[in-house]
């Protein structure tokens, strides 16, 4: 079988990379860490579709491609639709026996940024999950439209400075809360929904393998720190992700069949959210005395959400 060993990093590193270098993502971008990990956790043939976004524009700079698998890009919103179309065709040709190798296992994966998942491609994603195709959708959540200059998206958290929700004398940045996409996708009844982070490589690889193995539509939201728009030093990508998961800004958990919730990572020392916010330039203005109430609000939201997750895990409903 084509699942590769992830017992420890040494075993994991014997995989042959199928995502090539010389792509034009910013130095230190977490997108390619996540994509590499997905492509290394299986030996199966992959069929991948990408929404428009940082990942798409920088891995397919004409006349080059960085993908060693089948890969397609059509529009901003329709990676989910494109890949489910390919999946339906594969199923039909398998039935008719017209494939070159009828037994070769093929996995279908779609990548989207948070803009194309939370906002623009949401209808397409929702439809594809409702139709019940066998595919995995991975959202690379960097909390803004980073490809077009850092505009706000519905994934941007409250208080963040973006180019269309600017912080200044009259505003403290974005005023609305982040959309809870994991809960929304779980409500679709998808068999596997999870939120994962690249710094916990093992839980991430396990989650990816589970999603690829599970029959039916799976959704994974991954945190992808963006050094350009979150305004931190490229070398700190993994440190920022550590702060995000340890301050519970991004709890790591999975929801199976829409109800069975498992928390996959419990930080030993839960950090204050201030540590996470202080490490990034986009939250700089929150530390002015008149904006301190926003930090308190963020901390309150996080505590409430963590409490909810723990209760749901206990209740198994």
């Amino acid at each position, binding site marked *: 079988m084509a699942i590769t060993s992830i017992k420890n*990093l*040494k*075993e*994991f*590193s*014997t*995989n*042959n*990379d*199928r*995502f*090539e*270098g*010389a*792509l*034009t*993502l910013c*130095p*230190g*971008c*977490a*997108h*390619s*860490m996540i994509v*590499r*990990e997905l492509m290394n956790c299986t*030996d*199966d*043939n992959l069929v991948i579709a990408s929404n428009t976004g940082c990942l798409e524009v920088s*891995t*397919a*700079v*004409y*006349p*080059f*491609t*960085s*993908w*060693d*698998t089948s890969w397609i890009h059509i529009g901003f919103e329709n990676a989910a639709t494109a890949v489910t179309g390919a999946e339906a065709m594969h199923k039909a040709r398998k039935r008719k026996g017209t494939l070159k*190798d009828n037994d*070769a296992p093929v996995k279908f994966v779609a990548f989207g940024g948070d803009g194309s998942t939370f906002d623009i491609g949401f209808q397409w994603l929702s439809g594809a999950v409702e139709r019940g195709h066998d595919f995995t959708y991975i959202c690379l959540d960097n909390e803004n439209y980073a490809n077009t200059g850092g505009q706000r998206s519905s994934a941007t958290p409250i208080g963040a400075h973006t180019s269309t929700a600017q912080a200044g004398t009259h505003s403290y940045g974005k005023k609305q809360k982040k959309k809870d996409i994991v809960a929304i996708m779980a409500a679709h009844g998808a068999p596997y929904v999870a939120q994962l982070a*690249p710094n916990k*490589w093992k839980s991430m690889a396990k989650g990816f393998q589970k999603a690829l193995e599970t029959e039916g539509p799976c959704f994974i939201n991954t945190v992808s720190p963006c050094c350009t728009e979150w305004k931190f030093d*490229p*070398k*700190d*990508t*993994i*440190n920022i992700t550590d702060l995000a998961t340890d301050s519970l800004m991004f709890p790591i958990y999975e929801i199976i069949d829409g109800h069975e919730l498992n928390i996959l990572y419990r930080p030993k020392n839960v950090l204050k959210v201030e540590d996470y916010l202080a490490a990034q330039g986009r939250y700089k203005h929150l530390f002015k005395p008149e904006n301190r109430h926003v930090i308190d609000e963020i901390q309150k939201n996080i505590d409430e959400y963590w409490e909810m997750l723990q209760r749901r895990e206990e209740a198994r409903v």
Partner: protein
Amino acid sequence: MQDLKLKAADKRGIHQLGGDELVGWDEVTQGIILTSFEGDASNVAHLKAEERNYSDFNSYTATVASWRVQKPVFNIDVCIDCQNCWVWCPDTSIISRDKQMLGIDYDHCKGCEVCVEVCPTNPKSLLMFNEQEDLETALSQWPEKKKKEK
């Protein structure tokens, strides 16, 4: 680059439609297909990079070395082969074979310093040096093991 673009255009089917002549918008095959490999590519997951038959369209054949101001230098004497750098390198630039870290692919490295940051050894087995520094001089300047502060 221009040659590559022409070569790519061949695959779009302009030749089947009208040879060297330009064809109208409604005659052009929509979209474009770039092949990552020459010949059969069904077994790629089991081939190491040096055994693969990359085509000219694969970005493996391109380079982003000019993006770098500083480069990471690898000291094999300190390395414990934990593979942290391999799993977190965003540019597939850590060359790792048979559970051993062998070096850095300077064609694809952009010098983001993530590998230095995640290296757990004391002293670090990866450090940043100026791009112009040659490897031997860099290795001779390697810092001593730091003592634990009490």
